[in-house]
């Protein structure tokens, strides 16, 4: 909040203002996404000729256009679309004849379970392995970790998934190769989805820690007799976490979208398999609803990341 005298206002309203300001920033995001979703669907051609059989009469076509508001001008169609969007109405699935949003939301818990599990793996492994690699810089262990990071950033997710199925479900039947419902069925998909992001996070954590550990306050912490683990975690990691959080926030959005691929490999009944089916069936309301929903979740994730940022770095809150 610019222009406010430093230290003059109490903490809570400032925090609340910050939160409201950030929530306000969601508005242009939602508008942009709505325009993208609207334009993309209009680009795909005349829905009447897509959905009606070639034998449909002109009367049937006109009835269809009337029913979907396709006879009005594009700006009017957009405003109608936006108004419906704000009321949570994203049209009716051409395929299932149910509200598109309900179709997408029914698949959302599966995607959420997969993504959240993967994110937990990313944070736990990425941070831990990155810190350890930085502490043992230049050793064989560090080299081994960096080789894994290089491979993890270059491997195709769908191939990794198939190879995990081949090794851990076909050759050594430890886990089921596909399906949804039991914890054992979650293991391979979550690991597959997490792999790339574990590599990115490990790399960032390692380089961030190396940068922080070379600074004066770390030497001070050691000099005042603080134990090594407290120095590393409280002074080192806490400071290294700030840039990591930013990148992680962006990565989580990519991870959500990347779930499409993992879901396809493991026949996971989430939003990803739904949207690919919807594309082949030309079920555009469902495609549209999926894009809007994921973009919205993505914006919310970034908002959360910004708030976490405020907790990690008190300087951010005052600005």
């Amino acid at each position: 909040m610019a222009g406010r005298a430093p230290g003059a206002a109490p903490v809570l309203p400032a925090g609340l203002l910050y939160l409201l300001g950030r929530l306000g920033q969601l508005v242009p995001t939602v508008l942009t996404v709505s325009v993208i979703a609207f334009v993309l669907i209009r680009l795909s051609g005349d829905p009447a000729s897509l959905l009606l059989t070639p034998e449909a009469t002109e009367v049937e076509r006109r009835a269809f256009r009337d029913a979907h508001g396709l006879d009005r001008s594009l700006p009017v169609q957009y405003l109608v679309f936006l108004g419906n969007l704000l009321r949570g109405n994203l049209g009716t699935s051409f395929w299932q004849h149910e509200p598109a949003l309900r179709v997408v939301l029914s698949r959302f818990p599966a995607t959420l379970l997969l993504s959240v599990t993967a994110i937990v793996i990313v944070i736990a492994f990425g941070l831990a392995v990155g810190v350890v690699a930085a502490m043992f810089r230049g050793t064989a262990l560090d080299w081994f970790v960096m080789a894994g990071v290089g491979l993890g950033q270059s491997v195709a997710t769908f191939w990794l998934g198939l190879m995990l199925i081949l090794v851990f479900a076909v050759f050594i039947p430890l886990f089921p190769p596909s399906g949804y419902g039991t914890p054992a069925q979650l293991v391979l998909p979550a690991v597959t989805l997490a792999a790339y992001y574990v590599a990115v996070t490990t790399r960032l954590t390692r380089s961030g820690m190396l940068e922080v550990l070379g600074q004066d306050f770390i030497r001070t912490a050691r000099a005042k007799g603080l134990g090594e683990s407290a120095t590393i975690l409280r002074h080192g990691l806490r400071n290294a976490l700030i840039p990591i959080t930013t990148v992680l926030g962006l990565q989580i959005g990519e991870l959500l979208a990347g779930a499409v691929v993992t879901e396809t490999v493991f026949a996971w009944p989430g939003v990803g398999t739904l949207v690919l089916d919807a594309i082949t069936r030309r079920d555009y309301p469902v495609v549209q609803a999926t894009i809007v929903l994921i973009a919205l979740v993505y914006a919310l994730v970034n908002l959360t990341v910004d708030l976490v940022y405020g907790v990690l770095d008190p300087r951010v809150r005052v600005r």
Partner: protein
Amino acid sequence: MSPAGPTAAALPSSRVVHAFLRNPLAVSGLALFGFTLLVAVLAPALAPDTYDNQDIMGRLKPPLSRGTDGRVYLLGSDPLGRDMLSRIIYGARASVSVALAGLVIGGGLGSLLGLLAGFGGRGLDALVMRIVDAQLAFPSLLLAIAVIAALGTSLWTLLAVLALRSWAVHARTLRSAVLVIREQESVTAARALGAGPMRVAFKEILPNALAPLIVVATAQLGALILLESTLSFLGIGLQPPAPSWGSMLSSGRPYMTVAWWVAAVPGVAILIAVLGANLLGDGLRDALDPRLKWS
């Protein structure tokens, strides 16, 4: 940016070459990606067979086995009895050329927009950078799927999607390079000598901004190869019978449990190409400008 004059940054100076060659990861990246490029260029000479020659009697032969006509399938054969090795070799051609074309389109447009943003007025700069931020804030795979859903699968759609994935980073990189370079004395001197904005942009700024641009472009290359193979795997990228590594993998997938090679081999090819491009990008970055580390 190298603080030295225009030529020092434009041409690889001996310092840069030396720094690059001393880094074993950079050299192995060059070797891996150079190998991939070579295979792509020489595909017809290297491949023992065409990529679409089917032999129904020689279906799903394991690697190193003999076909009915006595020839050896080095990497096995696929569900239609086509030689995997030949398909992988032609696949290098398909995947690398599509990724490179997407990079040229996206990088060219992005660089032009970055140049405009850095040179044009404040309003233009703000507009371009807003679009860049919006683009970078949208999950790239989701945007790709949305665009393909709207336009249908075709080579042009695929190129558009790849260009869309890569333009924003180029625009941002070139813009920040322009902001730094246009304050340098050589540019002031050129302006004082009467050089117009176009001449300054293309003769003074662009050559000086080449180093960060090369770094960003190489880093994008691996990502584009991955994106192309992912889309082709999902069935919305290159369409069969084009021998894309991604579509080879998805067509081999139903046979995976009886013939592991049809799924394993294309993935190794993707790994080699992408790892090579990534290592090469990192190596170039470290050699040309160590300060670009976070980008």
